[in-house]
């Protein structure tokens, strides 16, 4: 309706212009101001025509899929049986093509309007190829490591929904699927569903936004491997009052208590009471307009695979320093990161206390090139006296925002002096509208 009103207005404005053109063509060409006016009128005319076309198109799309006009009166029958609903659509199709009557739209469905309400759909491909021998953590030579499907939309004025399905070459997992309540009172933001927990920084990141091909050793040894702490539950976060210029945010999360991959489990719920909890406190400060620092404290607690009586607790500190000059923000940037994790795992005969960390730096050389390095060191959670360490060098090329080629050289010295040298190649590509990730 609004479009029609607008069309009407534009027509009214442009009609007098027509008259001018028709009556006094000579005068118009003589007076340059008039010529400008004429040009504007002509442009308006074009826009009216374009609008008319658009409206025509919208109408055409709307018609065939419009819901039955008779059905709403009988809404209950729709829910009870599919039969009548299907039948009632048949006469409607005829009714619509005859072009009469007002169409009643049920629940936002119908034609182009329904299409417009589809969620943003994206697919991200992550192909990894690995050369080199690794007896401890073997990886396939060529692998379509992950295909991530994302569905994201605003649900209603109070919430939005995000789904990320992760397809391996075989098998699918729900990487994340949650509703975010954005309109809660007192500045609270709540999430319900399955989500990557707020333990540290890397744990929150999807594979495709990592600055490396793999995840750090400390993630593999202590924080649940590639999947990390990713579980079904509830999350509540809120920005806390803080001195001016400092951003402080607290997150509290409660999960069922099952996290980690098969190779590196963190939490396992043997009974309904074996829930796990994660708490995160984040502080952030702009040092200058181009430099900022981000510090986090994390804590996680849950029951491990030995049973209800065995707890695993994780403590974490993360620090990120970012630099990005605003005037040349698309050409140069630097991110330095570090995460330090302590694990206390109750097991027999004695509790294991392990520590691990990584530090990394990534520098953007130009619009399309990034170079980075990472140092890794971590004990193993079940055998804290065994320590693995390693280092990586990474080079990334971005043909565009939507694809990326990355090479990583990885040296690892596993406990027991097992040295490995590997070369990892990754190609990533993104289709469709993938929502931006939090900073």
């Amino acid at each position: 309706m609004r479009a029609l009103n607008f069309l009407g207005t534009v027509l009214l404005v442009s009609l007098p212009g027509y008259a001018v053109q028709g009556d006094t063509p000579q005068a118009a060409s003589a007076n340059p101001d008039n010529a400008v006016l004429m040009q504007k009128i002509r442009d308006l005319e074009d826009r009216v025509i374009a609008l008319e076309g658009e409206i025509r198109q919208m109408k055409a799309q709307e018609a065939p899929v419009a819901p039955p006009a008779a059905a709403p009166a009988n809404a209950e029958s729709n829910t009870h049986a599919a039969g009548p609903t299907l039948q009632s659509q048949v006469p409607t199709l005829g009714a619509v093509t005859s072009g009469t009557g007002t169409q009643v739209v049920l629940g936002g469905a119908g034609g182009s309007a329904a299409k417009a309400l589809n969620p943003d759909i994206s697919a991200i491909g992550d192909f990894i190829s690995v050369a080199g021998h690794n007896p401890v953590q073997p990886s396939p030579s060529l692998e379509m490591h992950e295909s991530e499907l994302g569905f994201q939309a605003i649900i209603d004025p109070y919430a939005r929904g995000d789904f990320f399905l992760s397809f391996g070459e075989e098998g699918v997992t729900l990487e994340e699927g949650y509703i975010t309540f954005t309109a809660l009172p007192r500045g609270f933001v709540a999430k319900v569903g399955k989500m990557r927990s707020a333990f540290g920084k890397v744990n929150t990141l999807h594979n495709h936004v990592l600055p490396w091909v793999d995840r750090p050793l400390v993630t593999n040894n202590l924080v649940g491997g590639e999947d990390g702490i990713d579980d079904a539950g509830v999350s509540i976060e809120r920005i806390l009052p803080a001195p001016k210029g400092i951003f402080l945010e607290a997150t509290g999360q409660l999960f069922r208590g099952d996290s980690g991959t098969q190779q590196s489990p963190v939490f396992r719920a043997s009974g309904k009471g074996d829930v796990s909890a994660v708490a995160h406190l984040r502080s952030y400060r702009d040092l200058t307009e181009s430099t900022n620092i981000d510090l986090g404290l994390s804590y996680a607690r849950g029951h491990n695979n030995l049973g209800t009586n065995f707890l695993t607790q994780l403590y974490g500190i993360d620090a990120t320093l970012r630099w990005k000059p605003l005037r040349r923000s698309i050409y140069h940037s630097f991110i330095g990161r570090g995460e330090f994790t302590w694990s206390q795992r109750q097991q027999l005969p004695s509790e294991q206390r392990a520590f691990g960390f990584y530090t990394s730096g990534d520098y953007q050389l130009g619009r399309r090139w990034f170079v980075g390095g990472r140092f890794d060191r971590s004990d193993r959670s079940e055998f804290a006296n065994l320590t693995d360490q390693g280092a990586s060098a990474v080079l990334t090329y971005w043909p565009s925002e939507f694809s990326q080629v990355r090479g990583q050289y990885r040296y690892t010295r596993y406990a027991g002096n097992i040295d490995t040298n590997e070369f990892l190649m990754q190609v990533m590509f993104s289709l469709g509208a993938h929502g931006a990730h939090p900073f």
Partner: protein
Amino acid sequence: MRRRSRSFRFTMFVASALLLWTLALPIGAHAKKVTVVTSTTDMAALTQEVGGDKVSVESIAKGYQDPHFVEAKPSFLLKLRQADLLVVVGLQLEIGWLPPLINQSGNPRIQVGAPGYLDASQFAEILEIPQGTVTRAEGDVHPLGNPHYWLDPDNGRRIARGIANKLSEADPGDAAYFQQRFQDFDNRLTAAEQKWEGEMKPYRGRKVVTYHRSFPNFAKHFGLDVIGYVEPRPGIPPTPTHTLELIQLMRRETCKVVLVEPYFDLKTPQSIGRETGAQVVVYLPSVGGEKGVEDYFKLFDYDIDLLIKAFSATR
């Protein structure tokens, strides 16, 4: 076991302290002024024009920053959580950074579709709306049309009117004030427009090349002819082949001005300038791109001054 229970008690203590702290907060006290956050400085400038001293306005992006690539820093959340009104450029210009900020803000007033969310593109004349199928083979295209629409004074007026109406809704007590401010802005803009148009008149039909497609509304309003772009496709950095083609095109068409946004590298534009004898001009697409360019009028003054110098030097 003793140590565990102690650490558990400690975390419980910290958690409950945090909870108490959060709950003890006063409910976001509404100041007399309407707090407006805008995504870009141009929207902030227009809001300031019509809002006067009844609003406090802050922009997230800086004027010299590429508005496509703003970092979604948490410090912006501090601004957003206080905002009564969020004015965005729309047409997916901010798609890469604004949505997570809005989600995390914990501010129901400015959520998409809420009364405090204003997409200014609904008021403006939008150019370059793609027809037919859109694919990313064309680069980082904006499927809803070119979002750099504010560089046309007529659009500036339309946006300002829209913002004034929105402010009147948000603060009905000051509606008359906002409408009067808009009338005043309208009058000043009309006068300025006549001046700018007079200044630009001798150069109507002049050909220019721009780095990014951020100039169509300005070019249309002032009758300039954008014949090419330094970027081969929107968002794709210059390639040697395309640069060569562009140089040949500029020679054929005798185009003598290359306009570059302040956030792009000048290397390719300068080599194009050397090859074709064209002037490389760093123009400002947004308010606040340089010191002293702090309102909507000064933005046009600055750019038109630059253009006139470049055009008269390359006559």
